[in-house]
Structure formats: C-alpha cells, structure tokens
C-alpha cells in the first residue's frame, strides 16, 4: 500500500502513534500560548531536531511542506511590510513548529498504526452509540477501495478519450459516480449476506 511514511524503520517508528499524537497536540497548543522569543526558538529547535534525528529524506519532506512553507513565507513578509517584524517571527515560528512536527509524525507512523489510534480514540464515542469497530471497518474499506477507484478513473478517462471527451470533467465524473454507487450497493449486499450486524 502506498503511504507517506518511510519504508525503513527509524527510532520514531518505535514510539507508539498515540504518544506521538499527544506530543504533537501538546507542543502544537503550547507554541500558540507562548510569546517569548527564546521559548519560540526552543520550540522551533525541537521541531527541527525531530526530523533530523530520524534522518528523514529532505526532498520528500520538502514536497509535503512546500505549499505551507510558501504560505508561511508570504504571511511573514506581510507582517514585515506592515511594520510588525515581531509578529512575523512569532507567526512563522509557531506554524513552522506545528508543520515540522506533524510531517515528522506522518513520515514515521504507518497508516495502519494511525487507523488503530483512530479506533482507540473513537472508543469514548460508544456513549453516542458509535461502535469503534465500525469506524475501523469503514476506514479499512476505504483504504481497500482506493486502488480500485484509481483504476476505475483510468479506465473511464481512456473510454472518454476515445470519444474525444477527455477534457470534460462531467463526462468522467458521471460514469465514475454511477459505477462507484453500483459497487457500493453490491458490497453492502455482500456484507449483509454474510450476516454482518451493524446495529
């Protein structure tokens, strides 16, 4: 299965996903509460050290953070032009911290570990009648069908190209929708026929 996380194991891979999410949540909230520039520098230092300590591939990381980096640079430039260089530093330091820690988490955590973490996080929802096992099954179903849908898009685009309709979004989306919904109906019947009880 294709995913952003690295194939090789780093020390951060061995840290449980829940712990990494907790660190991200705490650090992400804390960095927005501090104003002191030395404290902000500490957060940025920590956020830079984490991906470095795991030897994350620079090129792949840059690809993930590029749009956010451009936006952060533009926001910093805006604040400098408005004559508030201190706001520029605070805003870019906070956003850089959060983005770097988040990308580190994504590169060092398998999707399966994250899905498990989501299932655990969904446990308290039992009170509202939401079964965490159903949450896990729904996510697994979606992951399973992504390659199927990718293939379907390729197939439909080929067929519409033959009709000279490759540039027409609606000519691709309509058959894609109908076939997906048909597939969903069959799948729901198949699950029901096996006696899966969702209630």
């Amino acid at each position, binding site marked *: 299965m294709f995913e952003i996380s690295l194939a090789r194991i780093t020390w951060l891979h061995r840290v449980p996903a829940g712990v990494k999410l907790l660190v991200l949540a705490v650090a992400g909230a804390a960095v927005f509460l501090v104003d002191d520039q030395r404290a902000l520098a500490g957060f940025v230092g920590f956020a830079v050290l984490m991906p470095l300590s795991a030897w994350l591939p620079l090129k792949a990381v840059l690809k993930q953070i590029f749009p956010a980096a451009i*936006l952060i640079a533009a926001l910093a430039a805006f604040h400098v032009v408005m004559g508030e260089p201190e706001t520029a530093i605070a805003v870019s330091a906070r956003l850089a911290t959060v983005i770097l820690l988040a990308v580190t988490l994504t590169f060092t955590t398998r999707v399966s570990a*994250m899905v498990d973490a989501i299932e655990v996080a969904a446990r308290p929802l039992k009170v509202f009648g939401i079964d965490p096992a159903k949450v896990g099954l*729904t*996510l697994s179903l*979606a992951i399973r069908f*992504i390659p199927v849908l990718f293939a379907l898009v390729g197939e439909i685009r080929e067929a519409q190209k033959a009709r000279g309709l490759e540039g027409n979004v609606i000519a691709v*989306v309509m058959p894609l929708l109908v076939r997906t*919904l048909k597939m*969903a109906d069959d799948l729901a019947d198949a699950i029901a026929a096996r006696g899966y009880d969702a209630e």
Partner: protein
Amino acid sequence: MTVKDMVYAALFAALTAALGLLPMVAVPGLPVPIHAQSLGVMLAGGVLGAKRGGLAMLVFMALVAAGLPLLSGGRGGIGIFLGPTGGFALGYIPGAFIAGWFIERFWSRLNFVTAFIACAIGGIGVVYLLGIPWLGAVAKIGLVKAATGSMAFIPGDLIKAALGAIVAVSMKKSYPMIGK
C-alpha cells in the same frame, strides 16, 4: 450507522481520493486553476445527502490525516489540518453535510438553481466560515484580510458549485440516492 452508511461513506471517500488523479483545469480569467478533487465536497453532499455525505468527507479526511498521500500533488498527513489553511480542510466535513441537507430539502423540486444554492452554501459558505477565521487567527492577519485573501478562490469555487449542481441533478435522474 447502518452497513449502507459505512459502505457509501467508504467508497465515496475512495472516489474523492481518485478525483485527485484528474488534471487541474485552468479556466481563462481565473487566478487559480480548479482542481476536480475539491469538487468532492459538493458531490458527496449533492449525491449522498447530509449524513452519508458528511461521513464520506470525514472518512476521506481521516485517511489524509492518517498519512495517505491522497490530496492533489500527493500530499497528506496530519499537518494539512494544522497549518494556516487547516480550517478549509476541516470545513469540508460540515460543508458536505450542509450541502446534502439542502439537497434533501430541495429533493422533490431539485433543479439546477436549487442544487447550485445547496452546493454553494455547503461547499463554499460553510467551508469559508471555518477557513477564514482559522486563517485570520493562526496567521494573525485578522478576519478582514483573511477574507480578502480568500476571495481569489471564490470564482473557481462558484464554477465548482455549478458543476456540482449539474452532476447532482443528473444523478437524481440516473441513480437517485436520497431516501435510499
């Protein structure tokens, strides 16, 4: 949550991921190209209705957060929701729900105009309602500047709402899902 709810949400989330494969459409006179993937919000609400549409977007965003590179350009990860534009990404979930809610209300007299209103309120109104204050607060630029900066995307989003409306109306004729 019934088996059908789960299956429709899961397959529609996968479909939204697949929409990311379609090339960007550059519309003459628009500052930013339109991407087919963001059409997913309006399609989810417009085709599946409120509950299943909102669930589909929730599943899609959960997969992105879990680290699948599903967003256009092969991006993903939890950072998408924490950056300056995180509010827009999160807004897709209630956006699909609200678009679907209006589609259900308009169902018996669904035409291009009512479907367009539903898509625009959910897919643009709700999404910006979360995205703009988030951007303003996180980037410390204030509501007005955040709103002004987001205006560049409005024309493209209106075209998407029109496309979403056309699809919602055609789907009602060929494969109606509401009330199913």
